C-alpha cells in the first residue's frame, strides 16, 4: 500500500513516526529537510501521483486549528477544522483537493499532541461548546490503518468537555470505532451520492451499499451519524436516484441515530476547477452547465436551488427538517 515514505527531519523523533515506519518495513524511506521540498514544488502532476502516492511524515507548525468556511457547520456555534492529514486515499473527480494541492502524496502530520494542545486551548478559551471537523482536507477514516488517527483522538475527545468532533468519511474502516463505546460528542459523517454517480465519479471508494451498511452498524452501537449529501450532482433521473438513495439509507437506519444531514450542490473555486479539468479533459462532469459566482464555479443559482429543494423535500419523508443543513457557496 505504501512503497515510499518521505521523512521530514523534524518528524523523526515522534512516536507516531516510529510506529508507522515499523508498520512499513519494506517501504523506501527518503529523508527531506522540510515536507514542502517534496509536496509543494510546482510542475507535479496530481493525476500521475494519484496512481501511486507516497506517504510524507512531517511536523505541522504554526496554527493548527482554523475556523471552518461559512456554511460547513451542522448547528454548532463555534466551528473549527484541523488537518492532521492532507489528501485522500480515494480519487473522487469532484474533490477540490485535486485542484488545491500540487501533490497527491499523503501528507501526515505526526505531531498529534500539538493538535490536541491547540484544541484544548481553543475549547478553554471559549467556555462554550465547540465543533472540530477532522475531515476537511482528508477522509477522517480511510487511512486509519496507516495513521491510527481515530484510535488516538477519540479517547482524547472523550475526556474533553464542550468539544465535539466530526469524523467525515467515505470509508468502511470503522473497526477502531467498533472497539470502543460510542462518544457522546462525536458524529461519524458519511458522504453519499447515488450509486450511478458514485460509480462514475468516486474512484476507489467503497460502494454506497457497503458505506450504508457500515453506517448502520455504527448507529446500532450508539454512534451519532451524519449524512453528507454533498456534492449534489445534476444528473439524469435526479429525483429517482436520490429518492432511491434515501430509501436505501433509511431502510435500516433509525432517524433517531442521525445527528444531522447536510446538503450542498457541486461547487469549486474556479482556479481549482481549471487545474483539475486540465488533468482530466475527458471528464463529463466538467462539461456541465456551470456558472461562476464570487470565484466559485457551480450550477446556476436556479439549478442549485432546484437540486437542493428536490433533495430536502425527499429527505423530509425520512427525517425532521431541523436536522437538515444547507451548504451554500
Amino acid at each position, binding site marked *: 500500500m505504501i512503497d515510499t515514505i518521505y521523512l521530514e527531519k523534524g518528524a523523526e523523533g515522534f512516536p507516531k513516526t516510529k510506529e508507522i515506519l515499523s508498520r512499513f518495513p519494506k517501504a523506501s524511506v527518503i529523508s527531506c529537510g522540510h515536507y514542502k521540498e*517534496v509536496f509543494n514544488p510546482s510542475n507535479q502532476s496530481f493525476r*500521475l501521483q494519484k496512481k501511486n502516492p*507516497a506517504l510524507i511524515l512531517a511536523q505541522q507548525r504554526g496554527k493548527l486549528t482554523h475556523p471552518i468556511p461559512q456554511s460547513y457547520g451542522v448547528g454548532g456555534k463555534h466551528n473549527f477544522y484541523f488537518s492532521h492529514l492532507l489528501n485522500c486515499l480515494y480519487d473522487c473527480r469532484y474533490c477540490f483537493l485535486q485542484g488545491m494541492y500540487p501533490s497527491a502524496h499523503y501528507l501526515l502530520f505526526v505531531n498529534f499532541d500539538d493538535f490536541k494542545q491547540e484544541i484544548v486551548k481553543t475549547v478553554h478559551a471559549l467556555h462554550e461548546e465547540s465543533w472540530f471537523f477532522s475531515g476537511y482536507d482528508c477522509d477522517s477514516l480511510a487511512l486509519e490503518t496507516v495513521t491510527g488517527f481515530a484510535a488516538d483522538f477519540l479517547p482524547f475527545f472523550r475526556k474533553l468537555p464542550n468539544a465535539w468532533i466530526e469524523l467525515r468519511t467515505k470509508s468502511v474502516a470503522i473497526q477502531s470505532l467498533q472497539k470502543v463505546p460510542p462518544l457522546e460528542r462525536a458524529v461519524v459523517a458519511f458522504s453519499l451520492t447515488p450509486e*450511478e454517480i458514485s460509480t*462514475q*465519479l468516486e474512484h476507489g471508494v467503497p460502494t454506497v451499499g457497503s458505506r450504508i451498511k457500515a453506517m448502520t452498524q455504527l448507529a446500532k452501537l450508539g454512534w451519532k451519524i451524519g449524512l453528507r449529501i454533498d456534492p449534489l450532482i445534476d444528473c*439524469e433521473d435526479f429525483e429517482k436516484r436520490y429518492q432511491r438513495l434515501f430509501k436505501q439509507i433509511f431502510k435500516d437506519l433509525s432517524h433517531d441515530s442521525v445527528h444531522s444531514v447536510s446538503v450542498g450542490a457541486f461547487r469549486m473555486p474556479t482556479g481549482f476547477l481549471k487545474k483539475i479539468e486540465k488533468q482530466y479533459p475527458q471528464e463529463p462532469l466538467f*462539461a*456541465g452547465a456551470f456558472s461562476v459566482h464570487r470565484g466559485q464555479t457551480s450550477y446556476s443559482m436556479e439549478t442549485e436551488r432546484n437540486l437542493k429543494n428536490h433533495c430536502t423535500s425527499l429527505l423530509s419523508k425520512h427525517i425532521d427538517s431541523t436536522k437538515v443543513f444547507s451548504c451554500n457557496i
Partner: protein
Amino acid sequence: MNFVVAFPAEAQPIIEFYQLEKRNVSNALVFQKDQHALTLSGMGRDKAASATHHLAEYLGKRDLGWINLGIAGHGSLELGDAFLASKITDDANKEAYYPPQVYGHSLSISTLHTSTHPVTQYEQGEGYDMEAHAFYQAANTWSTRELIQVIKIVSDNPASPVEQVQPKKASRMIAAQMGKIDEIVRQMDATAKDLLPDPHLENFRKDILSLHSFSVTRTHQLKDLLRHAQALGVEMQQIKELVKNAANAKDSIAQLKALLVPHQKLK
C-alpha cells in the same frame, strides 16, 4: 523517451538497444528512432543542462519523458547495480529534487549527489555523479516531474574506486541493465502518451477553424466547447455540419453552446 548521457561509452548500449540513428542537429549530438532520442552531453553540470535544453528545443514538445542515464559512484551498492534516484542533491545548489516514485521497477533506489569533482570519499547509501542535478533542473522546465527520472549504474564504490573505471566495462554494465531500464522507459512513455492532447480532436479543431474566421477569444471558446462535446459524447460529424451551416464564427459558438445543453446532465 529522451536520454541525456554524458559519455559515448554510456550511450552505446542505449543506442544499440533502441537502434538509434545519428541525426544532423546543429550544436548537439543527437541519436533518434521512433519515440526515442539520445543526446550526448559531455561531462559536468553545464553540459548536461545545455544538452537537455538543446534536445528539448530540437524536439519542440512539452511533457515528454526524460532520463539521465550513466555511471555513478556509490557508497554501498555493488559494481554494476542499477539504481533509480529518489533524491538529488548538489554541492553547488541548495535545492534538492525528489523524482516522484510512481513507476513499478526492479532497480534499487538511492539518493544521488551531484558534485563538481569525482568523489573519492563515499558515504553509505549515497550515489555520486556530476550531471544529474543540472539535468533535472533543465528538464523540469520542459516536463512534469513524474516524467523526469535519473538512472545510474554503479561503476565505482569504496572497494573499487573511481580511478579504476574503464569505458568498456561501463558499457558492459549498462548493457546488462537495459532490460530493467526498459521496464521504466515503457511506463514513462505510456504515461507521456497519455498526457498528450488527443490528436484526433486537435485535427478536428483545425478543420473546424478553417470553416470561419475565428478571433483569438473565439478560438479558445471553440477549443473548450469541442473538448466538452467530446467528453459528453456528442458526435463530431454533427458539430461539423452545425458549424458549416452557421453564418459565422460567432454564430458557430452560439449554436455549439446550445447543442451541448441537453447533454450536460451527468448520465
